[in-house]
């Protein structure tokens, strides 16, 4: 099929297949539909939050193929065939991921709005760098804004999680 035939009209949909937290979803989306809205509205996973929708605050951060990604700066069609991890896949209240447990322990959240983005970013960091130190953690989280905590306890939490994860 030549490129001309491949063009999808703006008002038509593209069929995409996205795996989210291990579950496969086949949906039809407009080309312009943002991944953030796809996750929140089409898949009803509202744990990923919208703070600015222009790629600065990091509240919408998810993992796409294991890499931290601002879902507000991604079209859903770009996630076709990808593996997405959102906060809902990280752990449950009875079986928390060490990061979640550490945030709880260290008071790493107050309003909780930036928290899913922080957790997903921290998850990427600790997977790549299990011995991340405070400087590494601060650098990694520099693209996630928090208005409540002053950040220190978030860094404390990631530090504790790293320790837990290394120990386990």
């Amino acid at each position, binding site marked *: 099929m030549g490129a001309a035939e491949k063009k999808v009209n703006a008002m038509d949909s593209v069929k995409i297949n996205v795996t989210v937290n291990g579950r496969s979803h086949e949906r039809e989306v407009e080309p312009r539909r943002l991944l953030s809205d796809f996750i929140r509205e089409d898949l009803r996973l509202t744990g990923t939050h919208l703070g600015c929708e222009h790629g600065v605050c990091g509240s919408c951060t998810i993992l796409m193929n294991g890499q931290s990604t601002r879902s507000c700066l991604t079209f859903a069609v770009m996630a076709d065939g990808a593996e997405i991890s959102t906060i809902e896949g990280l752990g449950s209240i009875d079986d928390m991921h060490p990061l979640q447990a550490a945030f709880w322990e260290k008071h790493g959240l107050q309003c909780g709005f930036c928290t899913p983005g922080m957790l997903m970013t921290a998850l990427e960091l600790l997977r790549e760098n299990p011995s991340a130190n405070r400087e590494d953690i601060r650098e990694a989280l520099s693209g996630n*804004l928090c208005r409540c905590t002053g950040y220190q306890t978030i860094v404390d939490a990631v530090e504790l999680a790293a320790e837990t994860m290394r120990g386990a």
Partner: protein
Amino acid sequence: MSLDAYIPESRQTEKPRDSYKWIGKSMKRVEDPRLLVGRGNFADDVNLPDMAHSAILRSPHAHARILRIDKSKAEALPGVLCVMTGEEAAEVTGPLPSWANPPVHQYCIAQERVRHVGEAVAAVAAENRYIAEDACDLIEVEYEPLPAVVDLEEALSSTGDAVLHPYRGDTNVALARTFTFGPVEEDFAKADRVIERRFRWPRSGGTPMETHGAVASFDPGTGKFTIHANTSMYNYCGWMIADSLGVPAHKLNIIPTLAGGSFGAKLFSHKPCVLAATLARATGRPVKFMEDRIDNTTGCDAHGSDRVYYAKLAIKDDGTLLSLRTHIIDDYGAYFQFGVGQHGNALSQCVGPYQINSVEVELEAVLTNKCQQGAYRGFGSEVANFVIERLVDGAAAELGMDVVDIRRKNFITPDQFPYLIPTGNMYDSGNYAAVLDETLKLSEYDSWRAKQAEMRKQGRYIGIGVATCQERSVFSTTEFWMWNLEPGGEWTSSPDAVSLKIDPTGKAFVTLHSPFWGNSPETVVVQVLAEQMTLDPADIEVTYSDSDQGFNSTGPGGSRFTVMVTGAVVGAAHKLKKKLLRIAGHLMEADTADLEFRDGAVSLKGAPDKRLTIAELANTAHYFRLDLPEDLDLTSGLDTSYVYDHPVTTLPAKDNSHMGIFYPIMGHMCHIPVIEIDIETGKISFLNYACVHDCGTMVNPMTLKGHVRGGVVNGIGSALMEHYHYDENGQLQNALFTDYLLPSVLESPDDIKIGHVVTPSPFTEYGIKGGGEGGRMGAPPALAAAVEDALRPLGITIDELPLSPSRLRGLIREAQAGQP
């Protein structure tokens, strides 16, 4: 009037103790698990069947008449349900709430004219937000631009077309008034010298990560609105929203969602509610209106104070502070929802922790073509703190006095409490010298001064700032109207309520009638109730009421919530405990005076094995009426509620010679940052940051520290990088997060050392004082002082924020040019 006559008796029933079981514990938060797994219920997470989405068409002009709106193309777009103009909205929806008297009229969609960039000119409801925005693109509006009023001092003399609200007169001055408290003239005459400065406090805003929003539906079967929203005060004055919507108050139910931060911004976020509801009524479907970030920065109705101060501090050459005069011009933006409540607020502690004898405040509140002010963490008092601290540092500089010594010399001393400041407000308790000493120790002050001297020899610019500031807590509503020239709406109630019940299995249910903002109300409730009733925290459930079920509750703000919720829980617990003791006494055949609560049971004092658990007692209370005493007042069940009023507040004097007691639960803090400035780039780095907060008895030290730290970083933002910048045409230059700069982790100190001193309040339950506004009350003046100290070799004084690299470099360049 004698102090005894002036100060009401304390209604404290729970005295502070040396040890507690649950109060004072840094317990993990009850709120956290659901937030950690992404199951917080925020406003944008509310999804109702058949729900439509809305967007607003924002005004591109700062000030303009709306001549014509052509919405035909927008209406024709498939998926669009409704396109509404301000004129159409006004047919069914009245003005938005305003505490100003006389009020300033604001509508959820502008009609006739727009008054700031970003104000809604039209609103669209559509199948999804994408289509709603497409429709906005198709709306054609013809404007007649009017002069944009941007400079607050120029706004003092606006006339004609430059006047935003001509129905109030040919002026943009919304309120001008002077208050004189004490013998100001005399005190200035006695002074050896007067420290005189002009300060500029920039417009910033709470700017929480979550914007304001609402999901509204209208039931034509009942004529009733239901609104899910992240606003507070729905159980205090939610009826005002019903008023705007033109329905009786009981035809509106407001259901709170969690709020993703507020810092005051969501104190009474009425506009999204009214807008969403208006669209819901028009479309016959539930409608969601979530501000996007630009809606928020341009039109959140919650910008912070934006002030010029001409300030004078009369002093003696020995460093005694005598009197304070301030002439304030405050830029309120286009509307006036809270009147000058922010200045009532500032009168509560404008003299800081010092024995200043008299105060004069001349205020001119002006209206300009900007987003209106709301509340931002401090509600105007953080500015008063900045002003008095800068003046005190100025006095120290002029006298060649040490910045620590001059403060110590003028502190109110522990034996002087309860202390009345000239404005009439009371400081309930405190020990400012102890806080200062603790901070000097915690910050290793002497060691840093020595290091500073060494580093200066190396040509480095190191600064140490000292700020000793008040954090008043638990506001009285009088602050909202005490400045008004015309009476009306002079409320004096600012309570908070809880409902409490224990079910037949012994589980406790507490309902809060105010929302969650990121503070920790559920955790506070659990700790206090567990303390009161010796329950296990795991057996306590906390929920939130809506306005249908709710009782009068003012909600978080003004560092009041922990004190008020504690008071309400204590009041409710007392009632239930009394009933439980009666039942237990009856069943155990013991005198209630011989019984106590211990380990989740009522037991005999001295013989704890003789007990009935609360669960057993609850079961009896619910199901075994005939086993209870015959008293008709003793009904089946265990349920109650308690509305806790402001613990100590009085009216302003009729002649305004004083403002009464209106913000008396007085916390205090000392902040000592150590910074280094790269004088070539104007960049600041933190070498140390230490602070001590006295918030009376602490319920949860961990969450209190969270407010201190979070507040410090908000303060760093205000001091160093945050400024909503409007150009000469009233265009907001930095509506995006790329340009309105919030501190990230890298701009925040990694180790803010926090200490505590505890001077309990004699008026609140357990002696708790508020601490929610936290570090923002003290960080800005501390940072200004540190920067000034760092640049002392260049002779620079700091009178204006934010201290961006550009501004600092400009001051440095100027100073260097002036040097030989």
